[in-house]
């Protein structure tokens, strides 16, 4: 190592130390003055970081909202574990709620302290995935469904997932390449619990019986849109939120159908981390996030459906999100819940086997 190298190295090292030190100091400063800022942990570009919302919230409360992002749900849990006190609001999917609660990462929320929670639909407020020992872990925020998307001129009379067994749709079907979703579809068809099916063999047989109808197994929304526009298939498992984008952004002639067997639901909740030191401010932000006024403006830029009925009511009558996410569907939904590791593995193994069967 030449002298120049060594000098550069020393410089770099001291710069690193200095930045670490300022990082520590700024964190200490934050802790000393709690009402000024809160930190939200969420996916990037997912509602809580809408610029107009942050501005309005700061104007109303004087609290500045900072963000940290995660790219995968396990990463979210790791961040909560390894940075105690760093976050004041965290977005947790209902499938991860029980795990976060069991690990002591999130607090129960007293919904009476969140005024806007009055408008939450009962199916969400008492959702078994977030209600543990009679307490609610998280405030339901946005939700969606996985069900059938059908080409408009073929949609008449379709009211069942059995369309995937219908010879009239031979080679005209598509499935989502996701073990949890497809096993849930077969569980709905056979009257089982989607999160803990009792008869996996029957589920495998049901999925395998789709073989003649399945043309494509899509894995991204973009792929779905290209293939649907190209006329590759007429009926598919699809996301309710993606339907609105398919219609608005891509002019696709497609209709969303909730079959009589029901649909797979997902629910994103805003939770209070157990280690937060600014829980009041966090709850105030959560209250603002489910405020109909915030939602209606967010909806203009493609928000998912709100769990707050009052917010959905305020949308214009011709709003597609409103037309698709009807309150009467809620009792027909089974929500994706926590999966123990070995069951998740069994789901993946079965789906892999089914896919291999489709190919041969």
């Amino acid at each position, binding site marked *: 190592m030449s002298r120049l190298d060594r000098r550069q190295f020393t410089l770099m090292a001291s710069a690193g130390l200095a930045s670490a030190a300022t990082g520590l100091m700024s964190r200490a400063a934050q802790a000393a003055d709690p009402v000024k800022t809160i930190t939200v942990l969420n996916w990037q570009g997912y509602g809580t970081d809408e610029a107009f919302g942050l501005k309005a919230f700061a104007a109303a409360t004087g609290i500045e909202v900072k963000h940290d992002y995660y790219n995968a749900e*396990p990463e979210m849990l*790791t961040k909560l574990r390894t940075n105690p006190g760093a976050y004041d609001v965290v977005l947790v999917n209902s499938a991860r709620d029980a795990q976060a609660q069991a690990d002591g990462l999130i607090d129960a929320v007293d919904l009476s302290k969140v005024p806007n929670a009055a408008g939450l639909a009962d199916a969400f407020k008492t959702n078994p995935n977030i209600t543990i020992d009679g307490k609610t872990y998280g405030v339901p925020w946005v939700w969606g469904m996985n069900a059938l998307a059908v080409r408009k001129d073929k949609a008449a009379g379709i009211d069942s997932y059995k369309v995937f067994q219908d010879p009239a749709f031979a080679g005209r079907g598509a499935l989502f*390449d*996701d*073990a949890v979703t497809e096993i849930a579809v077969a569980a709905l068809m056979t009257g089982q619990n989607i999160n803990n099916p009792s008869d996996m063999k029957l589920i495998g047989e049901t999925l395998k019986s789709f073989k003649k109808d*399945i*043309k*494509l*197994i899509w*894995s991204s929304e973009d*792929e779905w849109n*290209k*293939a649907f526009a*190209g*006329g*590759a298939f007429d009926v598919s498992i699809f996301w309710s939120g993606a339907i609105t984008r398919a219609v608005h952004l891509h002019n696709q002639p497609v209709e969303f159908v909730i079959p009589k067997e029901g649909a797979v639901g997902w629910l994103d909740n805003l939770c209070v981390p157990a280690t937060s030191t600014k829980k009041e401010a966090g709850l105030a932000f959560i209250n603002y996030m489910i405020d109909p006024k915030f939602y209606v403006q967010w909806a203009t830029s493609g928000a998912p459906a709100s769990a707050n009925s009052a917010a959905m009511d305020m949308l214009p009558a011709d709003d597609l999100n409103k037309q698709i996410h009807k309150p009467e569907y809620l009792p027909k939904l089974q929500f994706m819940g926590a999966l123990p*590791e070995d069951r*998740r*593995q069994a789901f*993946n*193994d079965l789906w*892999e*086997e089914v*896919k*291999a*069967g*489709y*190919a*041969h």
Partner: protein
Amino acid sequence: MTSAGAASPPRSQRARQGLSTAGLLLPAYGWLLLAVFLPLGAMFIFSFLKTTPFGSSKPLVFTIQNYLAFVNRPYLVDVAWTSLQLGFWTTGLCALIGLPAALALSRATKGRFRQVVFLLTILPFWTNGLVRIFSWTMLLREGGIIDALLHLVVPGAGSISLLYSFPAIVIGLVHAYLPYMILTCYLAVDSIEDGLIDAARSLGARAPTVFATVILPLALPGLISGSILIFVPVIGSFMEPRILGGRIGVTMGTVVEDQFTQAYNWPLGSALSFSMLAVVLVIFAIFSRALRGRMLDA
């Protein structure tokens, strides 16, 4: 560095030479160790674990279950067979197209024209793989560009859709890997001296005979190295089968990819990869024995 014939250099000089050789090799071997053997070794160890060793505090459990996957999950045999078929089809078609292309490049082009043709040959390398594959979906789908062209020529013809079929995957793979074959064959063919061909002709050999007895044997090293370069990645390919194959596109590549990205079962994924590596090595061993026998005969 040849010191053959000269008196052997003094010891200090030899030591210095040894040092400089080691110094020159060190970066390459260091890099090889860091970039190839360490990650591969880690994957090899993972393949004997019961669960992925991240994100859980459970103790590590070793097992050989993952290597019994082909026994416990018989459907994987079909999947592996699909992958091998893809490998044979793609490599074969690349050889069929690549060798004549290399011959044409080497014998019929020169100067700037050759440079341009070379550039066009390498072009697939410079385009993003996903872009390449998605452009094929536009060409191959029903009502796509090929379909539209056919209807322009034959208005009454039925519509053709190759997308989401085995041939579609092969087309995508051949397009991606053909440059390897052309380049390796070009190197082999270009070094054939004109005198050899002239000699064959002067002894009365017609073009097919010249090709079979002079050009083909001399081009064989290029064909073999091209085939190895193509066969191995094709066996593990997953993007082309997934996007161009639709329901058909389940290969060892996609199964392994699923284990890493969806099922989060790294041990099974790496065990499947190493199993496929073993299969490929066996195939190469058989081929190399057959080839060596042929070369000895000749």
